[in-house]
């Protein structure tokens, strides 16, 4: 029941966010905030490491759709890795996987985004 945690780091110009906890509305807004900040710094590639997010809700995930919309205006990209099955299934149901990518690992995400 700890607060949602978010660690941000950068690898080869890609912004990686390691999340920790329930991705609800508050958590989604935290992620969006970091994206906004990084977009101001002209970063356009974002990876979410969702290893420690075993639970999400549709309000939290809807905020990721907002992020995707913003990224489209700057030709940016959003990706995820280390998803538990129910999170991946939810992303599929909501169609996020049409406009953002699920990667098997951080390595794969970085490789795909470095080009």
């Amino acid at each position, binding site marked *: 029941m700890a607060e949602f945690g978010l660690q941000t780091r950068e690898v080869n110009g890609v912004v990686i966010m390691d999340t920790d906890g329930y991705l609800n509305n*508050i958590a989604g807004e935290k992620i969006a905030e970091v994206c906004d900040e990084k977009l101001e710094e002209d970063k356009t590639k974002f990876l979410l490491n969702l290893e420690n997010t075993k*639970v999400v809700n549709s309000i939290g995930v809807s905020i990721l759709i907002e992020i*995707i919309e913003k990224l489209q205006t700057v030709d940016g990209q959003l990706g995820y890795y280390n998803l538990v099955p129910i999170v991946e299934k939810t992303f599929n*149901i909501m169609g996020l996987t049409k406009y953002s990518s699920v990667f098997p690992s951080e390595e794969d995400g970085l490789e795909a985004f470095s080009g």
Partner: protein
Amino acid sequence: MPDTRKPTVDLSIPVIPDMELAATKTAEVVAKHMELGEEATAEISMALIEACLNAFEHSKTDEKNIYIHFVIDDETLTIKVEDKGIGFESEEVEIPDIDQKLKGQRKRGWGLQIIKELMDSVEWESSEAGTTVTMTKTKS
């Protein structure tokens, strides 16, 4: 009259942040006891979160609790989520689509769709006195 041979679990919860997680923990314990499997358990939890959020949001007051009722049968778990909110017509709710959501103002509106996709059956009964959603999951 309820069949007393079927174990039931009842929760009455107020609108408190993350209170839906108390419901999902309950669902997890029940699902484990029924040996529904990890995948089904996660699906039930996700559907329950969405049903709780809808009940919280649409009951439109902090003072009224919402009710969650689990009925454990041999093969099937039935979950009812009940609120005393304003009600709605579930058939009139538009099916969300990512392309439209990306263009539109409102990114939300996914709860009903998620519940329908994840549960084996789901039914909304609604009036001005409130809404009850009844969902089931059967052992596969």
